[in-house]
């Protein structure tokens, strides 16, 4: 039995990432971005390019929400019946509202800048996968550090390697980002799939109602 008063909070936070569903959902978002950048590179001279830029803003703003919803949906079907349901504490009304507004504004601003940057293709655009790989790698490593789940570190390293490699690959304009997101989604699906498979093996579905309700 665990008597450390701080640990339950850490374990609850870790529970969100423990079964690989987060990687699967995040991989889904990366696949969506890969398809988007491939379509944009293919339709660069078409009238649809403008429409796609608008879609990117929507995908980037709603990306976090989408990953969250998808992870939750997977957990409701696979994790909660096996190892239990937990809902996380929400910040008090005012602070939560402020956080939502700040997150939305920051996402909209960065999405807008990214769309302008992608459309303008300025000098140094070929470094875009490297910068993206660095940002994603840092975020993934931070998740690994905060949850003490070591499998996130090789994921972060792969994100850096893909980004750096594609920056110097000399792929045609636009395709390097499609390749980056495609490769990252493949790795995320693999890591997530293996983790989920192991989790399901160790936690078979209960034959009876868990609490004898």
């Amino acid at each position: 039995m665990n008597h450390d008063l701080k640990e339950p909070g850490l374990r609850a936070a870790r529970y969100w990432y423990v079964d690989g569903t987060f990687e699967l959902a995040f991989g889904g978002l990366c696949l969506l971005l890969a398809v988007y950048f491939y379509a944009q590179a293919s339709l660069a001279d078409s009238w649809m390019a403008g429409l796609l830029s608008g879609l990117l803003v929507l995908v980037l703003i709603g990306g976090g929400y989408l990953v969250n919803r998808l992870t939750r949906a997977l957990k409701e079907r696979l994790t909660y019946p096996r190892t239990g349901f937990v809902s996380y504490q929400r910040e008090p009304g005012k602070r939560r509202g402020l956080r939502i507004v700040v997150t939305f504004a920051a996402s909209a601003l960065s999405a807008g800048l990214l769309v302008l940057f992608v459309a303008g293709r300025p000098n140094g655009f070929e470094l875009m996968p490297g910068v993206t790989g660095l940002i994603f790698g840092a975020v993934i490593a931070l998740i690994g550090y905060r949850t003490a789940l070591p499998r996130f570190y090789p994921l972060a390293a792969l994100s850096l390697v893909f980004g750096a490699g594609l920056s110097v690959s000399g792929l045609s304009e636009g395709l390097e980002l499609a390749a980056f997101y495609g490769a990252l989604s493949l790795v995320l699906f693999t890591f997530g799939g293996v983790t989920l498979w192991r989790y399901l093996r160790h936690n078979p579905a209960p034959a009876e109602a868990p609490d004898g309700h």
Partner: protein
Amino acid sequence: MGTKLRSLAEVNRLIHEPSRSVILAVLFAVESADFLYLQRETGLTKGNLSVHLSRLEEAGYISIEKTYRGKIPLTLCRMTEEGREAFKDYRKQLQQFVEQTTLNRRRQ
């Protein structure tokens, strides 16, 4: 015995029981958790957990909602405001006790 040390004798005994303090520590960290999650986190048997949850509910420290998720029964537990305050006080008392005893040891 100092005032702070004496305060340990007045600690909330309902919470001070090891199993119940673990249940409350888990519930304190989340919004709500179901029976299965609590059972896994605390390592208690179903019967034991049920008894302790009932005691905590009687004291008004937690609320228990019996519901269904699809066709699966779900016993959802959450800490009440009263429970959160009582647990905070309990933690404070323990912390003071630890600080006081550490200080006494250093003085010796």
